[in-house]
């Protein structure tokens, strides 16, 4: 009997899993600069969406009122109720605690008593009580951030302008990217951790990226990697210890507390938002900003210091491959109306001529003949009794 379908046998179907990676570069000019200018107040840039509740701000790749804009990440900050910075008179004190607790319960989980655990550095169990949180959108991270691919580069030069605003921003007059640190998950590909309820995470390490002023030898000068945060790969959340900034009045505190940490900035301005500097006794710094500024202002501070973000995302493709095998005796005729002229096959002159047909598509059907998937060839293929064809149709899920 003539037939237009051929059944797929068990050995014609194979399942595979492929990890697909895309490079995601986010330049600092998109995050702050492209859509902000002198007449635009910090935080009012057209690609920055703020909310009435003031608990985070969203960064878009384009003015967010445009339908073609995509949210790329959010920034928020918070501290634990047990943090030394916590205080009822602080600006948005409850919301900062709530943010910290929310992120902690989601990313760190609960202890055996049901209490929310704190963020900790797995290497030395140092608690991170004041943190920035940067959740990247699923559009960018897809299934997860590829381990070992993450780079977050921030400027650490400062300006006097920031002191008045109590935020870590620059007024544009000075180059606050003159000194930069690079935060990476360099060990992620080999040394990640799995004790989080939100999946795998790695430690973020800071190294010097650009130093403008020669400074005494020190950890950063020696390009020693210092742990400064955590990166949750599947959740796509960066947790950054606030200790990368100086803490006023109580120098040498925080994660980067290290007496050999270099004062690589000769100016050592009091309000300079930079990595902790040994002996710094300035009165304005992260401490003042964290207690006296809103979450939005703190987010603006970090955002305006972002020089570059890059990572590779990962998409897990589960594929089914259908091997459509047309043997020499299959599919040598066509039901195309132009194939016949008065029922006679157009491509034949005599009955003994070899039948020939050309195909441009492969249809995959259910048992009740419903077309479930279709594949198109980029050019017609000839089918006649002298050849056999195996078409490999891959459907990704």
């Amino acid at each position, binding site marked *: *009997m*003539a*037939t*237009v*379908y*051929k059944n*797929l046998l068990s050995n014609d179907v194979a399942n595979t899993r492929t990890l697909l990676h895309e490079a995601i570069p986010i330049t600092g000019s998109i995050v702050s600069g492209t859509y902000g200018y002198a007449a635009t107040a910090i935080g009012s840039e057209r690609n920055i969406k703020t909310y009435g509740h003031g608990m985070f701000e969203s960064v878009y790749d384009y003015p967010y009122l445009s339908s073609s804009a995509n949210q790329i990440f959010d920034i928020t900050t918070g501290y634990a109720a047990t943090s030394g910075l916590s205080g009822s008179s602080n600006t948005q004190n409850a919301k900062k605690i709530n943010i910290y607790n929310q992120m902690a319960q989601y990313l760190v989980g609960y202890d055996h008593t049901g209490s929310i655990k704190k963020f900790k550095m797995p290497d030395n169990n140092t608690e991170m009580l004041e943190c920035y949180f940067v959740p990247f959108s699923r559009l960018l991270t897809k299934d997860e951030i590829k381990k070992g691919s993450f780079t977050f580069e921030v400027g650490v030069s400062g300006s006097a302008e920031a002191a008045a605003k109590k935020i870590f921003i620059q007024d544009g007059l000075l180059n606050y990217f003159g000194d930069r640190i690079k935060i990476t998950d360099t060990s992620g590909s080999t040394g990640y951790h799995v004790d989080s309820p939100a999946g795998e995470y790695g430690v973020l390490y800071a190294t010097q990226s650009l130093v403008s002023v020669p400074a005494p030898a020190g950890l950063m000068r020696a390009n020693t990697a210092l742990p400064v945060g955590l990166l949750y790969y599947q959740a796509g959340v960066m947790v950054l210890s606030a200790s990368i900034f100086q803490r006023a009045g109580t120098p040498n505190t925080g994660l980067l507390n290290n007496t050999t940490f270099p004062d690589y900035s000769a100016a050592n301005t009091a309000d300079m938002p930079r990595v902790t500097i040994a002996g710094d006794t300035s009165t304005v710094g992260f401490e003042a900003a964290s207690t006296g500024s809103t979450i939005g202002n703190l987010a603006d501070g970090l955002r305006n210091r972002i020089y570059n973000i890059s990572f590779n995302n990962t998409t897990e493709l589960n594929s*089914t491959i*259908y091997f*459509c095998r047309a043997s020499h*005796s*299959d*599919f*040598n005729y*066509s*039901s*195309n*109306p*132009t*194939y*016949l002229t008065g*029922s*006679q096959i*157009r*491509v034949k*002159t*005599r*009955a003994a001529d*070899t*039948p020939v*047909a*050309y*195909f*441009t*598509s*492969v*249809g*995959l*059907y*259910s*048992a009740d*003949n*419903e*077309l*479930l*998937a*279709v*594949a*198109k*060839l*980029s*050019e*017609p*293929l*000839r*089918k006649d*009794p002298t050849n056999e064809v195996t078409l490999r*149709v*891959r*459907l990704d899920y």
Partner: protein
Amino acid sequence: MGFLDNSGDIILDAVLTDTGRMRLARGDGSFKIVKFALGDDEINYELYNKVHASGSAYYDLEVLQTPVLEAFTDNAASMKSKLVSIPRNNLLYLPMLKLNEVYDVSTKRHTTGYFLVAVNTTTEDELEVDASGVSINGILMGESPGRGGNRIRVDQGLDTTAISPGRTLDPLLVETQYMVEMDNRLGHIVSKDDAIRAAISFVDDDSIATYNLVRRDNSDFVTEISSTAFSAQQAIAGPRGTKIAFKVQSSLELNTSDYLFDTIGTTEDITGKSGATSHKVISSNIRVTGVNTGYRIDIPVKFVKKA
């Protein structure tokens, strides 16, 4: 949809159809691929030049240069014509489907070139006969299919005078199963004699209902063409296979509401008992496909309602 880049390696651009996605989302196991077919929708075999002066290597030159469009996700827009497997290589003729309008007046189309389905009794009364009381061809009684004998009939076989109809059609080429597709919002397929509704196999995401009618199980619809003589009543000139005949019952929605007429229809003057009067009209097609032989035809149908 754009054309596929055919400048380099042959690539395969695969997508799930909308129906495939619908079944996948349903999660009831109905998304199960069990077979495949090859299609040649873009191929125009008239470009095959058997007498090319440069020799046989050039016969299919133009065919092979055919640009191919990207895959459509609409299941109804893809795989319209398929390649056929027949375990014989020495065939010179293939069977086709042909609308039989010569059997008698009951199988003819209306003068507009369509079959007109009168969706309610008022319209049936208006269009059954003309002002002279003569039956109008191509009017299908959509509210009461048992009324009148008009029907749609499609014959299958080798439509050539080169082979006598007295010869038996090779069993390999006899169609035993037909697939009829029509818009389920507009109507249903019913048998020609006692107006039995055919069972719907499935309705896709575009409301296209598919009826699979097998000769063995649906003898009300599919029967063998017994005539082996040259006959003016036969649409197929050569050896004949089977035929499918049916009527169309209009949907309850068309019968009781003007919504679809106002949304996807137009208004036309159609001549009936009262002369030319205004009717609401929806144009559509009923597609009949031979499941085994792959040949298919689209039958033009209009659903009409006296305005």
